[in-house]
């Protein structure tokens, strides 16, 4: 059968995959703490149709100087998360925290497993515990007293509260940040959460502003690092490449059609 058809098919698939990755980025352009994903491609194996150096004729002097190696197309090898810093958006909300650096907040899921997030829009639940906007507990747990009038969180993660009748600020907790040697290897759990994998390595847990954790900014959120212009350009590129590959399919089809109709 015609190889060109199959090769062009891989091209179509790759562009479709790229468009899916781009649309996911665009859909999350306003998601706090979202990290953009970049579709990565790899050329497939080459087939040796004719070996270079083979005999061109019985005469031994005549060998083929070059053979024919045909590529078999393209393959999407994954979506690489790009962990660059997103812009900080000042919200002035006391429990909105942004990380300036490599660290992730640690959050406990319903089964007590650790999850990691850059989305620092925290709130307080009915018990006074600091939770994410989806209700998961921050780890280590921080409890804000019922009568606290003001919560302040320093750049190094110390949480202190003001209470009526108490002059000094009361320290109620210390935020810790986890960092990974290969954040691109984290598994995406959705809902802005990541999970540790063998590829990401074990988390290094540190107080903010120590080691590679980064500092905490109170009253701000980290916007998604999606560059919408770049994504739109990627979208155009994907669409055009898709069109060109479909042209290759129709060209291959046309060749076979012509053969069938004219012999």
């Amino acid at each position, binding site marked *: 059968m015609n190889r060109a058809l199959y090769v062009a098919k891989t091209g179509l698939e790759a562009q479709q995959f790229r468009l899916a990755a781009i649309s996911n980025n665009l859909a999350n352009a306003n998601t706090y703490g979202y990290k953009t994903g970049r579709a*990565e491609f790899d050329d497939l194996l080459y087939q040796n149709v004719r070996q270079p150096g083979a005999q061109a004729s019985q005469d031994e002097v005549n060998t083929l100087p070059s053979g024919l190696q045909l590529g078999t197309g393209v393959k999407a090898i994954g979506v690489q998360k790009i962990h660059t810093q997103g812009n900080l958006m000042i919200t002035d909300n006391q429990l909105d925290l942004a990380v300036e650096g490599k660290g992730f907040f640690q959050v406990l899921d319903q089964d007590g497993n650790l999850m990691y997030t850059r989305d620092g829009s925290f709130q307080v639940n009915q018990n006074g515990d600091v939770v994410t906007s989806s209700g998961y507990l921050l780890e280590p747990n921080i409890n804000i007293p019922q009568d606290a009038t003001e919560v302040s969180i320093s750049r190094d993660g110390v949480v202190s509260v003001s209470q009526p009748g108490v002059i000094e600020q009361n320290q109620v907790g210390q935020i810790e940040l986890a960092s990974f040697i290969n954040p691109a290897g984290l598994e995406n759990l959705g809902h802005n959460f990541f999970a540790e994998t063998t590829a990401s390595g074990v988390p290094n847990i540190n107080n903010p502003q120590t080691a590679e954790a980064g500092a905490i900014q109170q009253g701000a959120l980290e916007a998604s690092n999606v560059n919408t212009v770049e994504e739109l350009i990627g979208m155009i590129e994907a669409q055009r490449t898709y069109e060109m590959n479909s042209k290759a399919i129709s060209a291959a089809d046309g060749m076979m059609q012509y053969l069938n109709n004219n012999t």
Partner: protein
Amino acid sequence: MDRMLYIAMSGAKEVMLSQANNANNLANANTDGFKKDFNVFRAQHVEGPGWESRAYSMDERPATDFSAGAIKVTGRELDVVTKEDGYIGIQAPDGSEAFVRTASMQVLENGDLVDVKGNPVLNESGTPINIPPTKSITIGDDGTISIVPADSPSNQLVILDRLRLAKPAAGDLEKGLDGYARLKEGAPEALQENVVVVSGALESSNVNTAEALVNMIELSRKYELQIKMMATTKSHAQKSDSLLSIR
């Protein structure tokens, strides 16, 4: 029967193969760092007794076009691209050294610096690079990797290693069946050179899509010509049959 039909068949068959190669270039129009393959045809004379009046066609991939693709800025510190005719050395899956113009590098959990396909990136002495826990990694113009170690203040940069950079002549490189560019057999060893590296950018594929499309049309038309030749052969055969028919 006249062998002309076979000549036309060889033409059509080889054009079809060439079309597959062109489709491969097109399919990789968005693969970062991809280098397009050339295709040429040549006449292959049939030798032996009798007149050498027949030449079959033969499609070949004589070389790969290693010219530069467009640079796209990504801003990611571990995306690197070399300027001009420099190459970065990586270790291909079979353990040999391969050359790339661009690499989207990652640091693995054990600190190994690899490209996006997981191939170790090599240093000056040709061994894989390992990066200890860091606050940040910077890649300099000459391929020097400097880091801020995780346990030191941000202003303490440590020079860690240097990328393997070389300038092999374009004619000394060939693309293997696994798609990696390597030195040809017998080519002089590529030495470490001062090649300018830009970090925060990737090189896109060097496929010229307009050219590939035109090439595609050309191949399609040439294919049709071969089919026409087949049809001509058919009518010749019919004519001679009718001449000889007894009625």
